[in-house]
């Protein structure tokens, strides 16, 4: 229950911090931290407009997408407190419930029949496909290291063996951080600010949504950020007591948001064809973690 609440609170300010960081780095005053939240609230009060060429799939997709993110949130633990649901193998549930949401997002985009949205959908599907092995090799190695198969148990037992595991945690944080960028379509993979349909990935898929539906998609995006942020936090806090763990949670979330803002200010976006190469390279970083886990377990001696 605690992790659920913390993630929701973090989601409230995550995108706001990114935007604020970007505006400060570019010399602007920038909007307030809660502006993205206010935008979503405004959208929730508005009516959705549907194009004549779309079917029920288009209307269904945002709700499925939003609820998939909420479902994934339920299994994310916080240190020693379990997520609302916890069972062995829940990381597989986590990955595929998010994939289900993405699947509906993609077929919703295809449903509009627009050539742009088709392109965006194919790009998003491609990236997710290449990102999947990175996630599974990573969590699989942690499962191997700890001997458990649920998020809560993996994270709780992660640092019990030896402090070398913190080195693995840094690598894992990098992989999850990059997955966060891919899943949320942020720089350097996708530019959320662009106005050019031909270069968009995620933004072009939601072009036809408006009002309440758009609000759902945007708030799902905000939650997703915080979910991945919470995963990074979990890699480090282990079984720290709450009075340290909770401030660390918010510090790491805010740090992740500021780093994201920094990347978006000072980097250019990847060329589209380099994205796939980069995403696939994440899997090799995950493999490093796998070998690290084998080393710690003494499998090579």
């Amino acid at each position, binding site marked *: 229950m605690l992790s659920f609440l913390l993630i929701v609170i973090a989601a409230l300010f995550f995108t706001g911090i990114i935007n604020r960081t*970007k505006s400060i*780095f*570019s010399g602007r005053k920038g909007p307030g931290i809660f502006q993205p939240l206010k935008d979503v609230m405004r959208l929730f009060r508005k009516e959705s407009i549907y194009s004549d060429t779309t079917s029920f799939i288009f209307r269904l997709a945002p709700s499925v997408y939003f609820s998939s993110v909420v479902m994934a949130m339920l299994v994310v633990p916080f240190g020693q407190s379990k997520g609302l649901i916890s069972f062995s193998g829940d990381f597989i549930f986590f990955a595929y419930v998010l994939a289900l949401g993405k699947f509906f997002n993609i077929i919703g985009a295809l449903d509009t029949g627009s050539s742009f949205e088709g392109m965006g959908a194919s790009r998003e599907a491609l990236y997710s496909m290449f990102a999947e092995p990175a996630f599974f090799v990573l969590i699989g190695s942690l499962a191997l290291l700890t001997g458990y198969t649920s998020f809560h148990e993996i994270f709780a037992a992660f640092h019990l063996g030896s402090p070398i595991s913190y080195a693995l945690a840094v690598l894992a944080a990098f992989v999850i951080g990059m997955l966060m960028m891919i899943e949320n379509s942020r720089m350097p993979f996708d530019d959320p600010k*662009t106005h*050019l349909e*031909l270069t968009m990935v995620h933004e072009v898929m939601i072009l036809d949504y408006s009002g309440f539906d758009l609000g759902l998609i945007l708030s799902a995006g905000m939650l997703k950020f915080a979910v991945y942020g919470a995963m990074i936090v979990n890699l480090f806090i282990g079984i720290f007591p709450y009075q340290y763990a909770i401030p660390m949670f918010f510090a790491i979330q805010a740090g992740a948001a500021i780093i994201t803002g920094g990347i978006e200010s000072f*980097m250019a976006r990847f060329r*589209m064809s380099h994205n796939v190469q980069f995403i696939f390279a994440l899997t090799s970083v995950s493999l490093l973690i796998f070998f690290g886990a084998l080393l710690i377990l003494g499998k090579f001696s």
Partner: protein
Amino acid sequence: MEYAIIHNNALIHLDEIPKLNYDAFFELNTGLVRDHPERHCVSYFGYRSDNSLRLICCIADDNSCEIFVSSCQVSCRQQLEAMTSRALCFERYEREIHENFGIAYLNHPWLKPVRYPFNRADRSQAIAGYPFYAIDSDELHEVGVGPIHAGVIEPGHFRFICKGEQILHLEIQLGYQHRGVEELFLRRKKLLQRVTLAENIAGDTVAGHTVAFSQVWESLSGMEIPRDILFSRTLALELERMAIHTGDLAALCTDVAYQLGNAVYGRLRTPLVNFFQEWGGNRLAKGLIRPGRNTFPFTEQLASRLKTVLDTYEPDFEEMSRMLFRLPGTLSRFERTGVVSTEDLLSIGAVGMSARMGGLNRDIRSSHPSLLYETLGHQPVIKHHGDVLSRVLLRRDEIRQSMQYLRQLIQQVPAVSPETEVPVSLQPGMFALSLVEGWRGEICHCAITRPDGELAHYKIKDPSFHNWMALALSVRNNEISDFPICNKSFNLSYCGHDL
């Protein structure tokens, strides 16, 4: 002589332009440009005279500073062999003549409408029915972009034929911005109305087009232009070049999502355009340039202000440029993206920046100099790779060059000359031509006067007219997601093309 030789801003009596039959005209003009990289067609148009059509073709020779003018009398119902079949650079000119007057060209590879003008020969054709090049394939797909542009700039339709993410072919259809500018030049009789029209041919090339119009007008009315006016015009052209190039660099940074570059270059552009405001009361230099008059004399105070503006601009510009060209992310986006070969540029007759980025030396400031460019001793900046990086580097170097010219010019501000009367009547039966290197490239204005001294025809050519084809060629075999930076790196004008 088969052709008359004139120089930039010169005047020639219509009767002195030799009238050839079409075969000789065809051989002459295709022969002039073929295998002569130093020559290109600056204008080729038709106008109605004596119930038939007179075609006038102007070929500029960059080495000898000469312009070869020849003409030919044809009937609108005639079938003519297309010069495009020999030299591709006539492609769009012939399409334009075909569209305006209904001349049927034989062996023209791409005889499609150019801009659907309101007074076109065949009114049954409408812009909605443009004959796009189409494919019938299960492997390839078409992507249509526009006419409403994502950045809400100007309208134009782009039709891509793609294999997955790769562009195989791009066809650009323009014409949505057509306002009938050339016709309006004839209908509006007052000089102020006409010069305002010239200012509005392309909103980003106000100085370029207005200088071209003023030069045509002044040579037609036989005025001598004092040095202070030449000085103001040179200054305005170079300042416009700097301002627009800086804005383009900002926009290119946006397109590769490099926020810092966008913010810094965007901020740097503002003081430059604000200086125009300070000088002439308009940030786009509207109202600054008038035929035969120095409406806003450039004073010593303005010179010292401009010096301050440049002094604050330069360090920030250099620092930002160092960062931009050292960042691997931006370089990997710019390098080897959107390459056009020198041969292609030559065959389509590219001009201005779009030619110089691909190793082609085309710069009116050095080849057909007017204003104060001769005293500045202009040497064009040339890049050789023809990719987006070349176009970005060209902008950076041209900004530096313009900055140096501005500094050089304001060291000696000429005294304001006494105002002279601008003649209202033009010399009758004349042909005048003016070439100006705007920031985008060569602007060509031609005017023909009737025996009573009124304008019979006014022809405008913006550099975008040729260069849109360079964009279409540059994106071939590139990723479709790189189209926006290719487009922005050319930054061509829609309304300058559509007129």
